[in-house]
């Protein structure tokens, strides 16, 4: 806000994030002891599997794309003081929307994903405004509905023509995301980064973003200052849902090309860890998503070469969430 463009990330906040991330990796390394491996050995596998080769690096970037978008989804909602825990469901309906829109081309398909995610999140908003139902509960419950909706779709109306597996046919070739040059990376990488920059711009460079953050910090004071706090709730939830929906659409068009049960694979929930590690800052979310993307691909390598379940990546997420909540709490009580 001074002369130059100011990116408001303070050094101490980055320090906190680094401590939390290091704690998570250390936790993973110590887990190795339970599997009869030395921590150093596990760290070496994690590193080589996530950033050790061009192939590994591309895998990390691919995993980071949905994490970045669901992380942004959580960051925008939490910034507005709306506890959208429904990224998983919004991700799934986004993918469903993208699948249904795929016949009209890739742009239309992604638009459908955005709209589907926004609508799914807005169901929770409507319940909030109509009956004051807490969105923490309604968004989680909507996740289960979305999971079963997808399950029904791939076992029923959208099942592949051969009727063999509970999955859909592949989307038409014209609707898949183009690859970048001769890499394995799809264009979703670029889209996700653009969305992160757009989210930063919205939150920190526009009047609407200012009001959204004000509502998140202190709803009552924002209301007295003339902010339409219900309007902020509606908008934040819609944007949040749209970003999670987009994540689902990109995953479908860029990676899987088909719908199947367990399609979301926890990306929605992982977004919470991504956003918290980034301390709800959109640009920090890019770094945070890369970290978790690397952890996920590294954990895949652990499973292949050391026989350690890739579920340990989830453990790392949990450690990060707990560490960040502990830091945030401390900040609250000391101020």
């Amino acid at each position, binding site marked *: 806000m001074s002369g130059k463009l100011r990116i408001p990330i303070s050094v101490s906040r980055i320090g906190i994030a680094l401590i939390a991330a290091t704690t998570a990796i250390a936790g993973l390394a110590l887990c190795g002891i339970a599997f009869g491996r030395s921590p150093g050995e596990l760290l070496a596998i994690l590193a080589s599997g996530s950033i050790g080769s061009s192939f590994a690096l591309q895998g990390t970037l691919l995993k980071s794309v949905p994490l970045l978008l669901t992380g942004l989804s959580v960051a925008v909602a939490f910034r507005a003081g709306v506890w959208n825990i429904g990224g998983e469901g919004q991700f799934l309906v986004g993918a469903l929307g993208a699948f249904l829109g795929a016949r009209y081309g890739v742009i239309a398909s992604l638009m459908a994903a955005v709209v589907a995610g926004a609508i799914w999140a807005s169901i929770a908003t409507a319940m909030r405004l109509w009956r004051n139902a807490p969105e923490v509960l309604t968004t989680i419950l909507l996740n289960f509905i979305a999971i079963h909706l997808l399950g029904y779709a791939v076992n029923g109306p959208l099942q592949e023509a051969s009727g063999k597996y509970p999955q859909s046919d592949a989307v038409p070739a014209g609707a898949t995301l183009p690859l970048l040059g001769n890499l394995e990376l799809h264009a979703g990488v670029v889209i996700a980064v653009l969305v992160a920059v757009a989210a930063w711009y919205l939150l920190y460079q526009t009047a609407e973003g200012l009001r959204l953050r004000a509502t998140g910090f202190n709803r009552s004071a924002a209301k007295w200052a*003339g*902010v339409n706090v219900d309007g902020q709730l509606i908008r934040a939830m819609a944007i949040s849902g749209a970003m999670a929906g987009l994540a689902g659409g990109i995953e479908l068009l860029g990676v899987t090309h088909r719908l199947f049960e367990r399609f979301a694979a926890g990306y929605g929930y992982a977004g919470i860890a991504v956003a918290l590690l980034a301390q709800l800052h959109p640009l920090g979310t890019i770094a945070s998503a890369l970290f978790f993307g690397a952890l996920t691909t590294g954990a895949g390598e652990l499973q292949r070469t050391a026989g350690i379940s890739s579920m340990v990546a989830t453990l790392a997420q949990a450690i990060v969430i707990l560490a960040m909540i502990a830091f945030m709490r401390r900040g609250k009580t000391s101020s």
Partner: protein
Amino acid sequence: MKLTHITKRFGTNVAVDDVSLAFAPGEIVGLVGENGAGKTTLMSIAAGELAADEGTIDDRTSAGIVHQHFLLVSEFTIAENLALAMWGRDAEAIIRDSGIALRDVHRRVADISVGEKAKLELIKAVARHPRFLILDEPTSVLAPAEARELFVVMRQLAANGTTVVFISHKIPEVLEVATRVVVMRRGRIVADGGTMTASELAEAMVERRVSADEGRRRAGGGTAGGPPALRSSGLLLDRDGLAVHAGEIVAIIGVAGNGQSELATSLRDSLRGRVAHIPEDRARDGLIAEMTIAENIALAETHWRPRIAAQTASALIERFDIRAQSPLQRAGSLSGGNQQKVILARELERKPEIIVAAEPSRGLDIEATRFVHDELRAAATRGAAILLITSDLDEAFALGDAIHVIYRGKLSDRLTPAEAAERAPQLMAGVERRESGVGA
């Protein structure tokens, strides 16, 4: 029981400030004062629930306290709740001994009325036969008939030698039942006596803090005759009694808790257009503590760019003499007076046609108070219609072109400052019936 030089602090806030008070058996003491005056804190210390920071308590007797909020298990029946308090005694016998009527002990507490819950709390306290009984706002949830019933019980207890302390801000009730009235304000005892009139009591309760020389009046009142800029017929107001013209300051005075907050909130939610609001609860509603001064000021703007907002804020910081290092300082790190100046800067920057200012100088020092008053006067001179809601009488007289008294959510007639000086104490105490027609 005798309290000597009792002081209690919560952080930097002194809740009870060097209070000495002695009680005699058989007294019914009405302890009155506005919210935050320190009544409940003092009595919690007397009851032994809180430790005083300084001071001594002599001749401590068995004390019971009935709190404003209920300490009951909703899922249990009346009998079960009494069993929790007095194990082994028959619930119906306990109720009979207390002299308080409460039927059917097998009902769940969740299903009984608020008045009945209050009675149950009272029965629990009385059943222990305390020598010193404290009732914290016991009538706030009772119907008038139930309150009468409570007074009978209080008199019985006093006749048997119990000291009863009745915390309230309802003046007529206190005068009806108390044999002695103690008035607290800002942690101190400001009046203590056996006979007080309602108006003396009301005057003792509200603040007179603005220095006399500040009472200089603004030349020229409102443009009477023109259409009022602010008119309210909200649910709280029993008539279309409130009209504020452009260029005019209308003050609403009254003892806190008589509907002032509800009035300010309903105006916030109903008024449209260029309206400025100065909220009563500055700590909760004033500023976004986590955001910068520039961001807080910019909340009123339609368009916003960080750099321009910082420039605007810098100019306002200078003009409003806000003691801040930079417009990028967190608003929460400012002192109370400077926070209020930021709110004022933001709200007046809207070039408002209407200003609703609730307790705009509460907690501010003389200098800051004067600044706030000058800004409000200047805004009125520029043509804004200002509604000032205050519990500070001198503030109302210093600023108001016209004054209404609010009592139990109802506004009095529009009074001139001279009329208000004469009639306000009675109106605030609810002892003067409102007359029809204009003026007295």
